[in-house]
């Protein structure tokens, strides 16, 4: 077992982890943060996307030990009380989710995308989200949500 200390959603967190424990399972099973979902085993689907030091990362392809000393943000860390994060709000308003399983990953990938490119074109949005898969929405309203979030200044 290895000791790690990291910040998760703004709170300091100390834990003992088996080296083989992936960050996604650490967040879900040890911290009880069930919003980060596991959808595949080949780093393809992005449902597990979180932010590590502000950048989108697939938490299924990072060991918890690698996140020692890092700042991790999951979907649970986005809303301020009752107020949704602008990206979450945009996804809601644009009906960019149906079953919702892929949504936390898309929201975090979007936050990272808009941070790097606050006013992306449609092509840049579609390319920027190539690491996240959805079977329900056909991506159409997800693209609209990202555009709405960008207009609302979510990347600023």
């Amino acid at each position, binding site marked *: 077992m290895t000791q790690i200390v990291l910040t998760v959603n703004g709170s300091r967190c100390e834990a003992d982890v*088996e080296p*083989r424990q992936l960050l996604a*399972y650490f967040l*879900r099973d040890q911290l009880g943060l*069930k919003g980060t*979902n596991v*959808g*595949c*085993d*080949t780093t*393809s*689907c992005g*449902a597990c996307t979180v932010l590590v030091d502000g950048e989108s990362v697939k938490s299924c392809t990072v060991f918890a030990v690698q996140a020692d000393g890092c700042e991790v943000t999951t979907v649970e860390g986005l809303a301020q009380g009752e107020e949704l994060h602008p990206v979450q709000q945009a996804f809601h308003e644009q*009906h960019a989710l*149906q*079953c*919702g*399983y*892929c949504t936390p990953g898309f929201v975090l990938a979007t936050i990272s995308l808009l941070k790097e490119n606050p006013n992306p074109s*449609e092509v840049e*949005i*579609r*390319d920027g*989200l*190539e*690491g*996240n*898969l*959805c*079977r*329900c*929405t*056909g*991506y*159409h*309203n*997800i*693209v609209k949500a990202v555009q709405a979030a960008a207009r609302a200044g979510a990347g600023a």
Partner: protein
Amino acid sequence: MENLPLEGALTVTFVRSLLAHAKIAGIDATAAEALPNVQVLTAADMDLGPYGPPPFPGVNPGMGRPLLAVDRVRFVGDIIAIVISDDRATGVDAAELVSVDYDPLPAVVSPHESAKDEVLLFPEVGTNVAARAGSPEHDEELFGECEVVVSGTVVSQRMAPCPLEPRSAAAEVGPDGRVTAWLSTQTPHQDRMVLAGTLGLDPAQVRVIGPDVGGGFGAKMLNVEEVLVVWLARRLGRPVRWTETRSESMVALPHGRAARLEFTLGGSRDGKVLAYRLEILQDCGGYAVLGAFLPNLTGLMASGVYAIPRIEVEGRSVLTNTTPISAFRGAGRPEASQVIERAIDTFAAELGMDPAEVRRRNFIPKDAFPYTTASHANYDSGDYEGALELALRSVGYEELRDEQRQLREQAATTQLGIGISCYVEITNGIDETEFGEVEITPDGGAIVRTGSFSHGQGHETTFAMIAAERLGLPLEKVTVHKGDTDEIAKGTGTYGSKSTQIGGAAAGLAADDVLELAKQLVADYLEASPADIVLDPAAGRLHVAGDPSIGISWADLASRASADERLAELKAEREFKAGPTFPFGAHIAVVEVDTETGRVELRRLVAVDDAGTLINPLIAEGQVHGGIATGVAQALYENFVYDEDGNPLTGTFVGYAFPSSADLPSWEAVEMETPTPLNPLGAKGIGESGTIGATPAVHNAVVDALTPFGVRNVDLPANGENVWRALQEAKE
């Protein structure tokens, strides 16, 4: 189910066959059971019979699937043993250590080969043919009066449903001996009945809860894994939990499509279709489940939107050593549409006629409904020509043909293709009944309890809207409950695009009933006649007709009724049964084809989808968007492939080409509403329409792009290598 607390739950890991067809000579679990708290169970530890096949007429009952493989495995992924452990990691470690001694048997992967009955999956049954559809009788003169006859083949390739949430199940036996099962399913109530039947339990002893389910697309109905999880909870006396990995799901969750469709279509030189013959060879996979029955739906919908006087359909469903085939978004109807639309385009090409014009000459006219087709479907309402015209206008058809002409004259490397697909599909296809209950809550709101089971379809909003509108309540005051068989008295679940039209209708009727009951209660309180009480929906108030000042709001009525212990009077339940409805539409795809590499890019897809009355257009459109993506995925990307030994070659999201947002354009969805007379809402289903309409449009577009090169057909997925091969063959 990983989100459920479940104190003390054990983890279930399945040991699955690595071979497609083999006898099991022995299973050695010694090394596995040496790991802490690990237990391994096999068929020797259970005495339950095979599971299924489902009781569809005509499906060979001898081809059911053992819950655990007894002496033989029939596909890569067939379950051989169960590992019980304290946690997931130990379960994976132990499963690897279970040693299986296989006696390999020859594997048969192609349905064509399998139909020869040389390698039998069930030797005691004596054949691999699981079911037949239509009739083997052929009229030799079927095309006798046709001036022009064309034929061809469409292979509707095997697809994996890929819901983003893989399956998960948990079960626990309570102190009272009742078992509660949490399932990632589409059909909680049906699952309860089948679980009870399979395990020999009184249904009252079984509770099924469907929590939030991350997509289903037809594939998530009770399968052997869920039965085993419930059986284990009872056998071990401890709660148990199972979640499949994606690689596991890719072989263990049933697949879709996998049908070979051969057509012959004949008609007159002026474009009138006179006769159509369709032969279907359906791959069932290793066991006969719903897939065996699908050719019946394909055959039923063979006529498509056309008034074809004579139709012959023959279907065979054949086992192979592959993952079993079940329902997947469209379930038999995409196949019908894929083949008739290619047949019509092939006919148009032979005649040298515009494919839009040939379609116009053959549509079932708008005033001909209800209409019974020569393949025995009774269409309720439709305006096929209207849908096509709307689509052609929306896409700018003439301008696109001009652009195509120019690119052809220039002999440009990248050519343009325009493809049309006119479709009709059947929803609520087996005449089902759905349950709806409405009750008023103490605070003057309402609860809708539905037997439908949304797993992304938004019934929580749509059914709330239906009830809210009828009761004059704000949407926020109506909540929809679903998925718990202890709370919802009955239900059939959600599949076949039936939920709004029967579940929403039932909820609407129950709401109407509650309104009538409320009028009676208000009449009582106001000492008036119920016939004189009316609802002011905007104000949410029931009052004496003509005198709004004498009335009670829902909130006050609920409060007063609660105090008088009469709130239970404001509750009603309904079951609504109706026949199938037939949504329809027209899709037009515009593709760019790189004639050197074969690479296809979908530039545009215009979709006119008419599903009758739309309760919530935003949600309906979302269903269309997702459906289109799956339809396009079949046309251009996805293909689940095995090698000749039955080893899956596309068993992960790396190998299986599930497209991302970067691989698709935005859609152009155009609204059209032709209501159905068959339910009070005027609504048809829409969940599968996008899929059924899109694949043929894109397929036809790719072939259209390559017509100047002499290409008459491109295999699906019509992209890359398949395009290149079609071009090569045309040169020969």
